[in-house]
């Protein structure tokens, strides 16, 4: 069953077309890698799917709802982790969890249990009362991810969740992603790390607002006759008009 469907989705800002007629489907429980160089239009596409930005043309359905007409029910069914770190730095770890749990309508008496569960999964039991601004970046990102899925959404959108994070923490982060996928949460993730692309079930590569390739990492490597995803990406990114190189 598909939880995300995009049909010719397009977004223009004036004469510039950031996202140009993209179409794809993502199935329930899948880890979908959404790759592309800087400025390829990934964030714009994600913002449309999350109901933050209205498409110029084309259709999109997320968790069964029309992104054009029903942005509000979509928001109850997704989690979103933006490029910018977005927890409240002046709140404690448990207070951030409580806030988002409350917002998503988790009943008061379950919030405490949920909080403990998250802290335990992250190994943050001792940091419960620490202000978020005192945490290292990698820890913050792991916490943000857990907060983004506090309400067990059907889909979670991750926009470059691991940029600037050290390799060890990146690894732990992907363990969290697999853990979420095991629980049936569909993961839609953008990244610049091609080793991470290999962890995805399927990968799309965007160049100048268009999807140039979409398949499993294994098939893509075969198709482009490449040893790894890095080479696949380079072959495609070279075609970009935006790139001066």
């Amino acid at each position, binding site marked *: 069953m598909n939880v995300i469907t995009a049909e010719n989705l397009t977004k223009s800002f004036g004469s510039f077309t950031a996202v140009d007629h993209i179409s794809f489907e993502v199935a329930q429980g899948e880890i979908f890698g959404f790759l592309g160089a800087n400025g390829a239009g990934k964030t714009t596409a994600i913002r449309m799917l*999350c*109901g*933050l*930005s*209205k498409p110029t043309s084309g259709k999109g359905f997320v968790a069964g709802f029309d992104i054009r007409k029903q*942005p*509000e029910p979509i*928001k*109850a069914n*997704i989690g*979103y982790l*933006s490029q*910018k*770190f*977005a*927890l*409240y*730095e*002046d*709140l404690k770890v448990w*207070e951030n969890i*409580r*806030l*988002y749990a*409350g*917002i*998503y*309508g988790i009943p008061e008496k379950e919030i405490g249990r949920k909080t403990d569960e998250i802290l335990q999964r992250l190994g943050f039991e001792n940091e419960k009362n620490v202000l978020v601004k005192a945490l290292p970046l990698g820890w913050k990102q792991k916490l943000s991810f857990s907060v983004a899925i506090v309400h067990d959404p059907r889909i979670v959108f991750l926009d470059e969740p691991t940029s600037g994070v050290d390799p060890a923490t990146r690894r732990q982060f992907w363990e969290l992603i697999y853990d979420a996928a095991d629980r049936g949460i569909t993961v839609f993730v953008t990244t610049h790390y091609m080793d991470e692309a290999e962890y995805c079930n399927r990968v799309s590569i965007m160049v100048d607002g268009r999807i140039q390739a979409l398949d499993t990492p294994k098939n893509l490597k075969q198709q482009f006759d490449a040893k790894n995803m890095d080479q696949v990406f380079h072959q495609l990114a070279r075609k970009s008009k935006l790139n001066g190189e």
Partner: protein
Amino acid sequence: MLKYLLEKEFKQFMRSKFLPKFVIIFPFIALAIFPLAVNFSINNINLSVVDNSHSPYSSRLIRKVASSGYFRLMETADNYQEALKSVELDHSDVVLEIPPRFEEDLVNTRKAGVMISANTVNGMKGGLGSAYLAGIINDFSQEVREDWIAPAGRTVTPAFNIVPEYKYNPHLSYTVFMIPAIMIMMLAMICGFIPALNIVGEKENGTMEQMNVTPVNKFNFILSKLIPHWIIGFIALTICFFVAWLFYRLVPVGHYYTIYLFASVFVLAFSGFGLVISNYANTIQQAMFMMFFVVMSFVFLSGLYTPVASMPDWAQFVSNFSPLKYMIQVLRQVYLKGSGFSEMVHQFIALSAFAVFFNGWAVYSYRKRS
């Protein structure tokens, strides 16, 4: 949902290093120091006297001037040139020159002239100084006339004797005039600016975007910003009432609840204004600039410093668009005259109109989706 958002706002407020202290300390500082510093009542005018007459009458006049309380006799100069030099050096503000034939003229012709020259670089001080001085000299001539006629056995009452009686602010104290206005400025800051800056801050941090992908609707989000600041604003206003009583023994002639009633409409209007700005500004810097510009205009046209009635016609017209004007009127009237609601319906309607206008604009200009 609102409950969790409010919980968050209060925690953030209490945890902030600056805001809780600001709300407590600002009313004290603003009310204890401002009205004393920003004072337009004129005294301590420095006076330089050139007495060319050296007669009993001239020294009597000088004594009268010096003991009036408005003037400080800085020096007695030998001639006018010397006195003028003292003005140039900024030692004196006003020069009183008594001509050589002062006493003779007075006795012989019953008429004598003196010259008053005022430094009007500070126009207010120079103007008022010469007016006070003229008043004192007038008094003096009255005295002299009575002296001459009294021995002749007739009781003399002057034809006219005008004694002004000042209503509502009998001592013409500028402090009493300023305090209500300062209270309003503070209320505008706490309830209008701080929530707006807070919202723009969330935009800057990216937490706003995070909120936008949750089911939190805009109405709840804004309420969660406004309610805490309304509460805090009213606490600060109450502190102001207390400080005004503590330092100046100033209590309203009217009722506190009249003030609270008008203040809540005013606060609603100013919060709306803050929201409009928060919708257009993407960074705190932008928001600050916009507020600074608009508030400067509001303040200058509000009658806070200069009475609206003494502005040119076009400015009086423009001043109708400053919400501060109405609220300052209300507070001054309640504090000094004891006006009640029925005397201020006009202000109530104006403030309500501002509240509807700004909040309508805020709703219109807000877009959760781009």
